[in-house]
């Protein structure tokens, strides 16, 4: 066994990459849930984003354009969910699951001609002096631009939810839709916008996988990460900062267990593989002393009846 082989600086740098798709997807879903809507279709929106972004990036040669269209792709898929749950007043849980089913299918159909294609690489941000700093350089200043975009997104969403008037409205809608409606807020419109935002974020998260983290296109390549993102929102008690910490924790344990294996740690591999999930549960048990609860009307159908 050789722990010296594990370089903590590199470990942190790579866990940040591992966590980024989770951050995008979880933050998007967090906003959706804050508006009182539970969209279980994150996995579907992510994979549609992954292929939309991949196709555009390959065809145009621009990964950034790819990310933009990933957002559009994810949002378009989530529009189906919005129509179903906000206009047709369908139950949200199965609607989200149906969305995942559709997203997986649609993405495979879209991606038929893109198997084995190599996408253009996203250049890392190399800032002359900062990137070369000993410890903070690799951790803070040598990533791809999309990773920073994720961090900015967390900050923006935090500000939006806690400091802006529109955020207050959104939370009011999520807390008690009937009361918000009585106060004259357009509940349905706000929720639809939140759903679209969630879809766009999930799409970008998916494209981060297909364009940066892996990068390639194969069917079903998100391999369940959307479900982890959903779980993280709960884990975070609907707080953006905590969602980010949760993503780092999960990504960190995942990366760490692989590093421990490579270093030859004498713990059976199957237990190491379970560890990210078990540790997430354990941390949640410790955190659950904090009883900040879910948005009041989460998952409930709203209809303005007179």
């Amino acid at each position, binding site marked *: 066994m050789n722990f010296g082989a594990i370089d903590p600086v590199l470990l942190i740098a790579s866990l940040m990459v591992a966590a980024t798709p989770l951050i995008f997807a979880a933050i998007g879903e967090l906003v959706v849930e804050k508006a009182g809507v539970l969209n279980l279709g994150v996995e579907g929106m992510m994979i549609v984003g992954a292929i939309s972004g991949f196709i555009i990036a390959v065809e145009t040669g621009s990964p950034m354009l790819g990310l933009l269209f990933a957002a559009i792709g994810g949002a378009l898929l989530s529009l189906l969910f919005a129509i179903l749950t906000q206009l047709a007043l369908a139950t949200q849980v199965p609607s989200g699951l149906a969305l995942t089913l559709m997203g997986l299918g649609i993405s495979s159909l879209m991606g038929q001609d893109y198997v*084995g*294609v190599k996408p253009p690489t996203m250049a890392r941000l190399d800032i002359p002096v900062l990137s070369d700093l000993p410890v903070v350089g690799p951790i803070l200043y040598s990533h791809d631009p999309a990773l920073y975009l994720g961090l900015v997104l967390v900050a923006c969403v935090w500000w939006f939810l806690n400091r802006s008037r529109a955020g207050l409205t959104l939370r009011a809608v999520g807390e008690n839709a009937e009361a918000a409606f009585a106060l004259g807020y357009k509940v349905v419109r706000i929720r639809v916008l939140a759903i679209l935002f969630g879809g766009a974020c999930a799409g970008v998260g998916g494209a981060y996988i297909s364009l940066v983290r*892996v990068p*390639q296109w*194969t069917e079903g390549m998100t*391999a369940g990460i959307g479900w982890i993102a959903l779980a993280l929102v709960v884990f975070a008690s609907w707080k953006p900062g905590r969602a980010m910490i949760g993503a780092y924790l999960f990504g960190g344990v995942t*990366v760490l267990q692989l590093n421990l294996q*490579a270093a030859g740690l004498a713990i059976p*591999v199957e237990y190491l593989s379970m560890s990210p999930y078990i540790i997430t549960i354990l941390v949640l048990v410790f955190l659950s002393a904090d009883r900040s609860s879910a948005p009041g009307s989460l998952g409930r159908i709203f209809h303005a009846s007179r």
Partner: protein
Amino acid sequence: MITRRILMASVAALGLAGAAFADGHAKTKVGFVYVGPVGDGGWTYEHDQGRLAVEEAFGDAVETVYVENVAEGPDSERVMTQMALDGADLIFTTSFGYMDPTINVAKKFPNVKFEHATGYKRADNVSTYSARFYEGRAVQGHIAGKMTKSNIIGYIASYPIPEVIRGINAAYLHAKAVNPDVEFKIIWAFTWFDPQKEADSAKALIEQGADVVLQHTDSTAPQAAAQAAGNVVTFGQASDMAEYAPFPRVSSIIDNWAPYYIARTKAVMDGTWESVDTWDGIPTGMVKIGEITDAVPADVKAEALAMVEAMRKGEYHPFTGPINKQDGSAWLAEGETASDGDLAGMSFYVEGLTGDIPN
């Protein structure tokens, strides 16, 4: 009510038998059962290339059908039965987990021929076939041992099954032979398919000093990680992964099922099909070594090609003694080659590898 049930059951039995004898169609119908999507770029993709080669080879004389994403267990049994009912003459079942279902269905359709990949149960109308990928691993090991500067070779393994363990041993023995200081770091991903985990595994290995990464998983994620690192050598797995050539991907092992699929289809057409146990490698082309690029020094490339040629002629066996097991006990004596039985069920590391095989 009861009589009706009995009637239905006998109709069912007749129906099954009837379908099996319904050999009136002019075209030979060949079915393929896939465990993944044809767009997986790896295992299933290569089997589907084999199917397309069959269509190409026989044109209008054959009809091929396939079902993808078929779960092992009752779903696969149903899909196979359905293909047989629809008049398939030959069915390829392309995953180890289809073993018992294949045997079950074959019993019901004695006139339909079945070909099960990577299993060990046969019947009068069930053949098995598999590829000696370890021959390719030996070549990789040789190149890896020569090219590593850090003397650390990373290995991304999927599940601890004989096939994977064989690959690790073959690669290690040949790396060690040309570079006594070489050390293997092995990560068991415990998944067949999770590109993100493969990316993380490759990164972890590279960060811990590996400058060659071998993979027994099918995605190109490790190739991309190696490319980002800049000075890490990789090899394509399952498919050529030529999009990462000439560097980091310096060569590859390609699953090439086409010759076998064409031969077996031909055998059914000619009425010469027999149940066989096929375990082919480089000699028949079932295992193909992808182009060794110029990133490999010319002398190393020549040695590697010589090894391939020796295996092709049957002059060299990658497991030739003396070889000891990990615990130091003797396995093969000087000059002795491993028996197929030993190889098929291989569940131990050879001497020099560190760490334990999970369970």
